[in-house]
């Protein structure tokens, strides 16, 4: 093998190694907190607010189900966003609105609590708006951090 071929192989390997995490981004982000639901949802609200987001609504899915006679564990949806970001999406990319505001599902599983969200990066695959990529990456980073904080808080 000559030098040129060797350098090409090393170049290709290096580029692939660095690019790999981007090519295999998780689509569903999910964590477990070893805490009861009531405590855990408080921690989730704190984590969301710590990252500069405003909670728009907490939908009590379990209450709706129970009122209809269905048996359920505690189950809530937490909607959140940054007002100025939501306003910009409304004005420039209204086709994204069905997937917004950002949302984290939280539900009890015995003495544990699970929280999950879809990775905002999937919106790039769905809508293919290059100009939105930095925004989507920020949301992904924030949601990962929020979920990590939620899962590790004591």
């Amino acid at each position, binding site marked *: 093998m000559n*030098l*040129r071929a060797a*350098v*090409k192989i*090393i*170049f290709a390997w*290096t*580029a692939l*190694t*660095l690019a*790999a*995490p981007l*090519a*295999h981004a*998780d*689509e*569903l982000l*999910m*964590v*477990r907190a070893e805490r009861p639901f009531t405590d855990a949802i408080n921690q989730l609200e704190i984590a969301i607010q710590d990252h500069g987001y*405003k909670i*728009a*609504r907490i*939908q009590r*899915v379990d209450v*709706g*189900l129970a009122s*209809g006679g*269905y048996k*359920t*564990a505690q*189950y809530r*949806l937490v*909607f959140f*966003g940054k*007002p100025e970001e*939501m*306003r910009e999406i*409304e004005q420039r990319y*209204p*086709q994204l*609105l*069905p*997937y*917004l*505001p950002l*949302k984290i*599902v939280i*539900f009890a*599983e*015995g003495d*544990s609590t*699970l929280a*999950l*969200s*879809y990775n905002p990066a*999937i*919106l790039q695959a*769905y*809508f293919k708006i290059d100009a939105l990529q930095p925004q989507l990456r920020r949301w992904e980073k924030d949601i990962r951090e929020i979920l990590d904080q939620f899962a590790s808080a004591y």
Partner: protein
Amino acid sequence: MPPIRRYCIILASLVPALWFSAPAAWAAADNGTKLYAQHCAACHGSHGTGGVGMPLALPDFLAAADNEYLRKTIRLGRPGRVMPAFRQLSDTQVSAIVKHIRGWAPPGIPVPARDATPVRGNAEHGKKLFAKYCSACHGHIGEGGQGTGVTFSRPRELPVLAPALNNPGFLAAASDAMIKTTLMRGRRGTPMQSFLKQGLDERHIDDIVAYVRTFARHPLHAARSVDDEPPVIVRESPYDMDKTIEKLKIAIGAANLRLIRVEPFDEKFFGKDKEDRRHVTVDSCDFNFLDQALKIDPRVGLFLPCRFTLTEQDGKVRIMVINPKRLSAIFNNAELDQLCDKMYHVYVNILEDATF
């Protein structure tokens, strides 16, 4: 610039990034505990006791499952049965997770060696035995128990949902010897009993193994591509915003969904005086449908609520709703895909009625 020099310059510019990122990646690769917490604990429980996913810390499971089974399961997942394929993990990382799982084995239980020797048996006779002894839990064609998640689809004291034995991920990961061992030992702490204790002998068990292996000839879960599905179902309304909202409310009622609320999209962010009334959300729910969906997959909250978003742009009003067929793909749950197909048609009918 000569190509070789160009490559060297680019390579040199990448080296610092690699230099700084690689040690962290290598350190993480060795930390099975951390990797398990990051990728597995949400479903399988922090201590392998199960939940949305199977319990892994059962002594009989760890006595039967060889490391290759665990590695292949992590790599291939269970197509259509929630467990995703972790192709992004390195071999070192997968091995670290396997080592972490092994740590739950009680003292004295050795790591079973991979035995790739095929089990010889009478598959026709095995089919009859399967129908008698296995199908009540594993399904008539090995499709497994319905639903997932300890919270919604099965009692908490029952830690396991019968696995799908016809799943291509399972069939690729499990050796005949592992299936045979499971049949012979059973799995204490689950409804799976030792078949020897139920009166079958080793020859009968070989027949069942031979039959289970035939499932590979008839794979059930053909991978379906939804890449062509639009992320949003959209209809243009011939009416103004107020009239469209009224028509939509009637259509939602006609589809037996309960109307929850109508509000400007950004009202909760800006308050009632500063909201943009050109973007309105109409939330609804079919609690009976939701109850079914939660039993199939407790993560379905990501679809909720059944939200219709109306936007007014250049004098035209459009109604949009998430296309459940597209979003369902990220859940890797074939049962959920079927429900989402139904929901898709419900949404389309509502939009058609509201814009007719």
